[in-house]
């Protein structure tokens, strides 16, 4: 194996087995194990899919089915930070369109792209369940609410 091949540590493999034992069909653990893989390797490459398939004795095609079905698995390496702007109804009415336009202009990327320095990936997503604070976005694991262009600039400055 070359060093670029995705491989879990011994502790992670123990965790995989623990998760698999939780379900009547071990396949039930596929989603959490894929999240583990994403956290560990940064994204889900085809090599990672094959590696995970091996852990479940599944064919890679079936892992690929799961990865392509859900939008929260990254099939390309994202930037160091992921900014997901809600563009669903409440946020849209509250100006998500101009929020996205502002982000595109500041980051000089289109939605779905990553800045050239690999710092930020910009996404637009469906409802994140914080309509009371529209317009809003998620930055990595945090919610940023009641957005304005000024607030956005400050948030972006804080992203290393």
């Amino acid at each position: 194996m070359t060093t670029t091949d995705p491989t879990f540590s011994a502790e992670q493999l123990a965790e995989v087995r623990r998760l698999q034992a939780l379900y009547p069909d071990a396949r039930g653990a596929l989603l959490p194990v894929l999240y583990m893989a994403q956290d560990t390797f940064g994204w889900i490459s085809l090599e990672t899919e094959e590696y995970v398939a091996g852990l479940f004795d599944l064919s890679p095609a079936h892992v690929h089915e799961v990865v392509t079905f859900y939008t929260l698995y990254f099939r390309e390496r994202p930037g160091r930070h992921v900014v997901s702007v809600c563009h669903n109804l409440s946020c849209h009415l509250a100006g998500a369109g101009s929020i996205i336009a502002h982000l595109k202009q500041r980051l000089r990327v289109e939605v779905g792209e990553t800045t050239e320095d690999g710092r930020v990936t910009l996404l637009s997503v469906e409802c994140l369940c914080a309509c009371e604070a529209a317009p809003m976005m998620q930055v990595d694991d945090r919610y940023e609410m009641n957005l304005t262009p000024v607030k956005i600039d400050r948030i972006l400055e804080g992203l290393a």
Partner: protein
Amino acid sequence: MPRLTVNGQQVEVPAETNLIEAARKAGVEVPHYCYHPGLSIAGQCRLCMVDIEKAPRPTIACNTIATEGMVVLTETDRVRETRKSIMEFHLINHPLDCPVCDQAGECWLQIYYMKHGLYDPRMRDEKVHKPKAVPLGPHVMLDAERCILCSRCVRFCDEITATGELGIFERGDHSEIGLFPGRALENPYSGNVVDICPVGALTDRDFRFQVRVWYLDSAKSVCPGCARGCNIDVHVNRRRPHHAEGRRVARLKPRYNGSVNRWWLCDAGRYGFTFVDDKDRLLAPTRREGETVSDATWDEAIAALAAALRRSPPDEIGIIASPKMANEDLFAVRRLLDNRALRRVAFRVPPRVAGDQDNFLIRADKNPNSLGAELVGLGGDSRAVLEAARAHRLRCLMIFGHDLLASEWPAAEVREALGAVETVVFVGANANATSAAAHWVLPAAAWVERDGTYTNFEGRVQRFRQATEPIGQALAEWEIVGRLLAALGDESTATRAEHWFRQLVAAVPAFAGLSYQALGDGGRLLAGAVKA
């Protein structure tokens, strides 16, 4: 055994029977796409909705088990309306490219639209576009736009071959069938996904665009590719020969036989028929003198051969029959042995490369009738026949079909043997290096050009029927040997495959009690056969 009523008709079905099969038993067809009796239940296409008395809404028949006293209705207004709507859903993004689709004429979207759809399309938006004409492997072409995501092909690869190549990727109206990037659909049974795909999403690369399916004729037959003897339909193109540059056999399709191959065929068998229309087919009897090869009439050939057999003492005549010959042919050879009191006979020639075998259908013995040849009594030592020839102890050697020069035997020894015999006769469908070395070459009909039976490795005797005319002047081997017998004064030779079979049954105890009629479409096990 629950008893239920389907559209007012009582039926009794085995426990655990689903409603599609229960209705089938009552003579009622419940339309469906994703259900296949050889695969697990997916409940994906929603087309098989039926009404069940006391149930609040229509229910999918495939995933509902028949129970005692159940009252099933398949033609209520509500069911018909549901079917129509489901058809409309299935066709929302369908490209409707039937005029250029190979499946047209045998497509379940076409058939069910005419039977259960017939709505006015309401789709006004641009349809979702997906990849078209994507080769998935050596045999299968994918058109993702035509796919209705029934998942039959996926389940086939998961459950039957356990190779898992296919999946449904993305979601919603972007869902599409595909392979893991970089992989190919090349398992030894890949062609079956084309058969079970109910629409034109998976088509056969070999058959594609050859001829429209409504021009095909069909004959019930048996695959000669190995000792399994899978049941097939031979589809021949007689009516539009110019569409396929004269290729007559358009394709082989599996024919259900619950005791042999169920719904399936291997790819080697399915695509292994190219020899039938190959350029190397032998078209007329030929005689070789030195380097000169000339055509002869059948009468000349038979007379010459009869003379050669007459002038050689029985011990100086060798016959290498073939396990690719039908029981009828082999029995004719047996009669020839009896007529001339010949003893140097065999049928097995070891292949250069041992055949592959799996624990599904494929058998290592790539011959359809080794057991038949054995039972008819032709199972001698073929190596000994070759050695006798090499030692100049044979004056006449008849070889049926084999290319001895492509066998496991050292080619130099085979050449020596062939060179040491005064009259080498080759009887076969295709030319090969051995036929090139023969003095007389007699053209035999291919299995699709004649009737006959094979005995598979389990002892199941199965009929194959003529699908097309013999090429050129080719004749079935039983007829060639029969003419030879007549020339040698044997008056009782038969003039039809079935008559030869009758004589075989009368003479060989293993076949006792069989007849073409008794064999029917699914064949019969020999009385003494032990089912493997």
